[in-house]
Every structure is written in C-alpha cells, then in structure tokens.
C-alpha cells in the first residue's frame, strides 16, 4: 500500500507522522456512505438533545377536533388572489366533515384558509434538555391557537411531528445508555477472560454461548413483564435498558475477549509484563490504545440492535409505556389494521427507525474497515 492510496493530498511526510486516530480518520473519510451516515446520525442526536426546540407543539397536547388529521404539505410560495406572490411557508387548512348518516369523519382541504409557519416564534418559557431556559422554538404557527400537522395526527389528535421528535430522544438515547451498560459488562468480562484465561475464560465463554443460544425476545419479554406497570417512567426506562444490556453484552464481550487473546502474546505486551508492569497497567496503558478503535466500531454496530430491541418491546406493550414517547410506543398505535387503514401516517416513526438503524449500520461498517490496519483496500 503506497501512501498515495490513502489520500493523495497528503505528502508522505505528513502521513508518516499522523497518529493512529488521524490515519483512521483519513481512511474513514474515503468511505462515502459511512460519511453520509455519520452526518445523519449526528443530526439525529442533535435533534434528540434539543428535542423541545424542534417540536412545534406539545407532543402530549390532545385535541378532539384533529383526530386522525392527515399530514399537510408545506408550500413555500404564497400567492394571493390578485396574482401577487411572496415567499411565506404555509400549509392549507383542512376542514373536518362528518357524514350525517355514518358519522364517519373525513378531512377535505379548506381553500380559503391557510396557516402560516413562522420561524423562531416566541413561546412561553420552557427548559430545553431540562435546564436551559428558552422562549422560542424552531418553527411554529403564526396564530397562537393555530396548528399544523406535517406528519398528521394520531387517534387523540396529537401532532405526530412533535411526537416523532420527542420519540427520537428516548429511542436514540436508549441505544447509547444500553450499549454503555453492555460495554462495561463486556469490557470487564471479556477483558478478564481474554487476558487471564483459565477457569474464568471457560465459564464466561460458556455463558456467552448460552446467551447466544436462547431466543432473546421471549426472555426480554419475560423480564420486562416482571416490571410493575405502575412504575415511574424514568425508572422503567432504566430497567428496560438494563434488561436490554443483560443480553446485549455478549457480543461485545466476545469481540473484546478475542482481541485480548490475540494480543496477549504480542512482543510489546510481553515486554511490558516482563518489565514488571501490573496487569492493570498492561491492560490500560499498553493494550487498550490498540483496542479502542475496534471497540468503538463494535459499539456503533451494537447501538442499532438496542434501538430495534426497544422498538420491538415497546411495540408489544412490554417496553416503555405511554406517557413515555419512543418510536416503539408510537408504532404501537399502528398495531391494529383498522387504524392504519384509516391513517397510514402512523407508519412514519417506522421510517425513522429504519433510517437510524441503516445509518448506524453503515457507520459501524465504515469504522470497522477504517480501524483495521490490515484491511485490504477494496477495488
């Protein structure tokens, strides 16, 4: 591999001095799909962190007049009857009509009325992420009582757009927290097993094998069924992540164990050990630096698994429960055929699940390729 295959703009000199992280970054940057995915994921987490700022309305605000309100298209050019036009984003209002005979509700466009969308509208003071006081949002309706529904409304007339944004926070973070917990378990168990070997290695390998052999969803369901439904939402959130990571750690532990096992007898590790370094120093000072990149790659591949798991559990009614909002909780609304036949837009959270999981998978693939110094250059 010549230097120019990594990045022709770099002189070979710069490449020689580049740190391991820089090399990984150069290589990663060339993986175009992974780069796009990285931006997508960053955008998702940005929205998740500042969810309150992005949601135009209160996601729990019910409204009887807007039950199953269909999504409205945003139009940017506002043309008046006299032929003049201006740039002013707005949506066409819909009018609710009830069939006098069947009482079936249907919405039809109301040609005379428009709701204008305003950027950075003033609102009452709210606390973003729980502690930053704010008094404006990204977008909102111009009139105080006006509403618009970019993703439609659900069976209680709640704005799906705001709810999807609110769900982003819980769904994306449960992946992070869950993986964080499994990482701790996986690093400790896999590390000790790989470094010291012996009986602990045998036992933990068997445990990992066993955990991979049992079907996870029935076990997850069984464990979460034991959580009392009356529990505080925050406590439930943490218990669910604990349950998810109780099974999720095995994959990480396997990777860590494998790497430790392979590296234990490398010259530099043996040298450190012969110099009398304590195991903790050998592990953290000498072995960790060459492991971190791999661990990051496996972590980014473990997050989507967690997200899917939470979505599935909540969808079945055994994960998070309303009033918590996650993509799975939202999709539960789409569970019966009658409501989706009436309101297809209840599927929208599912699209976000797919995008997030897809992007995380590509990101993980890209990271894994970039982190492996021996990977063959493809093509």
């Amino acid at each position, binding site marked *: 591999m010549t230097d120019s295959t990594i990045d022709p703009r770099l002189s070979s000199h710069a490449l020689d001095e580049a740190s391991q992280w820089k090399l990984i970054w150069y290589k990663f940057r060339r993986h175009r799909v992974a780069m796009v995915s990285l931006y997508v994921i960053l955008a998702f987490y940005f929205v998740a962190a500042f969810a309150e700022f992005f949601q135009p309305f209160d996601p729990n605000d019910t409204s009887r007049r807007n039950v199953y309100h269909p999504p409205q298209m945003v139009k940017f050019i506002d043309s008046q009857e006299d032929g003049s036009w201006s740039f002013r984003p707005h949506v066409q209002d819909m009018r609710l009509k009830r069939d006098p005979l069947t009482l079936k509700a249907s919405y039809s466009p109301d040609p005379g009325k428009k709701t204008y969308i305003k950027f950075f509208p003033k609102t009452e003071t709210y606390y973003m992420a729980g502690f930053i006081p704010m008094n404006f949002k990204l977008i909102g309706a111009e009139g105080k009582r006006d509403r618009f529904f970019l993703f439609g409304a659900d069976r209680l007339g709640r704005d799906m757009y705001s709810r999807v944004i609110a769900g982003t926070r819980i769904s994306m973070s449960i992946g992070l927290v869950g993986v964080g917990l499994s990482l701790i378990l996986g690093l400790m168990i896999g590390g000790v097993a790989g470094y010291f070997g012996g009986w602990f290695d045998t036992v933990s390998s068997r445990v990992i094998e066993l955990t*991979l052999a049992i*079907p996870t*969803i029935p076990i997850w369901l069984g464990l979460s069924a034991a959580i009392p439904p009356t529990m505080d939402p925050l406590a439930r959130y943490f218990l669910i992540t604990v349950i998810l990571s109780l099974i999720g750690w095995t994959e990480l532990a396997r990777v860590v164990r494998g790497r430790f096992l392979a590296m234990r007898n490398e010259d530099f590790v043996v040298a450190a050990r012969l110099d009398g370094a304590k195991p903790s120093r050998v592990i953290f000072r000498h072995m960790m630096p060459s492991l971190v990149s791999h661990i990051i790659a496996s972590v980014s591949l473990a997050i989507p698994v967690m997200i899917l798991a939470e979505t599935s559990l909540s969808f079945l009614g055994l994960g998070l429960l309303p009033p918590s909002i996650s993509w799975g909780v939202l999709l539960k609304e789409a569970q019966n055929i009658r409501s989706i036949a009436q309101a297809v837009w209840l599927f929208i959270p599912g699209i976000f699940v797919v995008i997030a*999981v897809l992007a995380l998978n590509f990101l993980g693939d890209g990271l894994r390729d970039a982190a492996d110094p021996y990977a063959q250059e493809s093509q």
Partner: protein
Amino acid sequence: MAAYILRRVLWSVPFLFVVSLIAFAIIQAPPGDYLTTYAARLEAAGQQVNYARLETLRERFALDDPFLIQYQKWITNIIFHGDFGISFEFQQPVSELIGDRMLLSIVLATSTLLFTWAVALPIGIYSAVRQYTVGDYFISILGFLGLATPNFLLALALMYYGVVYLGADVTGLYSPEYANAPWSWAKFVDLLKHLIIPVIIVGTASTASLIRIMRANLLDELFKPYVTTARAKGLSEFKVLMKYPVRLALNPFVSTIGWAFPQIISGSTIVAVVLSLPTSDPLMLDALLSQDMYLAGAFILMLSVLSIIGMLVSDILLALVDPRIRYR
C-alpha cells in the same frame, strides 16, 4: 462421527438445565406469588374464593418453600409427568394449551430456516461472482434494508397492502373453514398457502445477513490460486465454482445457522403477534401481560429448548460438512 454427536448432545444437557432455571426465574420474577394474585383477582371480580383449593395448589407448587425446592418440583413434574402446571387465566393444565401451538411454532421456524437457506445461498453466490455489478448493488441495498427494517414493520406494511389493495386478510394460518376442521390434505395445503407470508417476513433479516456472509466468504476464496488452477484445467465455470470455492465458503455459513435459529424464533414472536398466527407467541404475550406465569414460563422454556435443539442440529450439520470439527 457418532462419538462427536454423542459428545455434542451431552453438552446440551447443562445448557438445558440453565435455560430451565432462567425460565423458572422469570416465572418467579413478578412480585408476590400467583395464588395471592389469583385470589385477589377473584375477589376483585366478586367471585367466591375456594380457600381449600388454594391450599391444595399451594401445597402442589410448594409455594412456601425456597426457590430451589420449588424449581425442583416444577421441573420434575415437567420431565416425569409432562405437567407444566396450570394456567390461571384459562383454568386448564398448561400442557393442554400449548401442544398445538408449539407444533405450529416449530413448523414456522423450520420452514423459515429452510426458506432462508434456499434464498440466501444462491443469491449470496451470485452477488459474489458478479461483484460490483448492478445486480450485486441491488442485492446489497435490499440486504441492508432488510437488516434495518424491524420485521413487525414489514408485517404491518404487508397487512396494510393486503387490506387496502387486495381486500384480503393476510392474518392467521388457516382459512376460516379449516380453522377447526380435522387434519386433511386440503387443510395442509391451506396451511402452506398461509405460511408463505409469515415465512418471508420472519426470514428477511436472517436471509439478508446470510447473503452478506456468503458473499464475503466466497469473495475471500474466489481469487485464490487453486481456483485459477481449476479454471486452467479447463473445468466449466459452474463446476469450478461449485466444486471448490463454494464448498469452502459454505463452512462459516453453516456455523452461522446456529445463531440464525434462535434469531428466527425470536423474530417470529413479534410477527406472530402482529399477524395473529395461532402459534405459541401471541398466547405467550397474553400470558406475560396478564402474569399467567406458569403458562408464560412453559412457552419460554419450550422456545429456548427449541433453539438449543436448533443449535445442536446446526453443529451436527457443520461436523458433516467439515471433517476437521469431528476430530477436534
């Protein structure tokens, strides 16, 4: 070979033991014992509580004894009498409730597995041999999408499509006229027709990952010198492929079947609930939601045993294709 199979079968005994412990721990997990819950529910419903009967039940499940003794009573009853306890919800022995449903679960899981292999193998080979062609990219994109879509979403989308565009109900495993009919050839054909959609939905994720694995394995082998040699000897391209690299690439492929099986069982749970299939899963979910724990525990135990058997079968298959494993 026989020795290997025997060793492998013996290995699954401790696995089965641990799995049964886990299942029992889940039964035990909700606070309070079931009889108290049960009595409370009866009282809440304004019904007479038969305390003498409760006392017999308490005795029968050893509810006042420590965990291990309760476990021992539960498991010996299962092994020696086929008695899984009683479902409080249905007031019937659990074993009567789960029989048919477990059978259908097994049918669904095995047919999904067969479908997965039948689809993943040729597509994986194609996509490796025609690397970087339109077909390969198309398959890769489909594969990634298949991995990222939760299968209940796929089930919902298909159901929506069925109801809105075809006017047909895709749920269930039998047509109404066969639901309670005795087994016959016509009923069997009807079951097969209804199986197709659940099998595709459940199998999507594992098919996608198996295609990727097959493709990667085959690509590792495809450019090795022995393939060139075979080609130089004048073998037809098809024979070159099938005789050498595919056989080698098959190895890691077969070993992934071990985890594909638990994954399929796991995935079918949600799909079965959405499509309301008469397999074990919807009843298990109901049992878990109403904390009918003996019923739920029996299902969890049986599904886990099923996937351990799946692992066992895949290990034996692996030993069949790879002699090195037999003599390890």
